């Protein structure tokens, strides 16, 4: 249910009910906040940047095939 709130897929009715519950439940508030933070921190940090040179290598490979066929 909390995950649906995170994903924005809850109905307005359920949202209201959840928000009411969150007002009095520290456990759910912590769950919600830390889950949101988990997603955010993975979104905003590039863990595997494209290494230099990979794009050029691919470019060369594509052009080589293109010359042979297109």
């Amino acid at each position, binding site marked *: 249910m909390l995950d649906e709130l995170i994903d924005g897929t809850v109905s307005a009715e359920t949202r209201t009910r959840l928000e009411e519950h969150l007002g009095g439940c520290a456990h759910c508030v912590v769950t919600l906040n830390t889950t949101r933070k988990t*997603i955010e921190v993975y979104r905003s940090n590039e863990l595997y940047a494209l290494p230099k040179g*990979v794009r050029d290598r691919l470019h060369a490979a*594509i052009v080589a095939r293109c010359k042979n066929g297109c």
Partner: protein
Amino acid sequence: MATIQVTEGNEQHPDVALVASAVAGDVHAFEALIRKYDRQIFRIAQHITQNREDAEDVMQDAFLKAYEKLDQFQGNSKFYTWLVRIAVNESLMRLRKRRTGKMVSIDEDIETDEGSVPRDLADWSPNPEQNYSQTELAKILRKTIQGLPPGFRVVFVLRDVDGLSTEETAEMLGLSVPAVKSRLLRARLQLRERLSRYFRSKKGGVE
């Protein structure tokens, strides 16, 4: 959280025109597709294979395969969805090669006790990532996600990092929608619990 806007009706996805031009022989159109998606494809491959060399090869092979089979590409499926499917399959092949004898697949459903019951629920400091340098943080995040099964990692990356819909993710991975949902929940739960070690506030948690 951002939701994906699905373009429907007359509005054509911009990739459709690029694919058509590439099929007609315009190599620049295909290169535009590469520039658009190479980072994501590399990231997905790296998350599955956990090996930089393999990820580079996967990215290369996925685009080359896509280029060769472009005329067979069915327009009813999105180009990116199709491309990710190719990259996921290539990644799994390489992962299997490196772990001979070990079963590796995206649909292997791993039952873990971990994360099923949230224990030790601690609140985090307001901006917990600020206690670490960029390099330290990236290291923590990599280490944390690497501990998850491959099928969980890739679902989390497609859904929560790339922001794709549950349906698209299911199609890309050849999984059912409920399977994607259940994996995503468990991935989030496990990541959150593992990150707590680093991010919890010093004051301690909620009982």
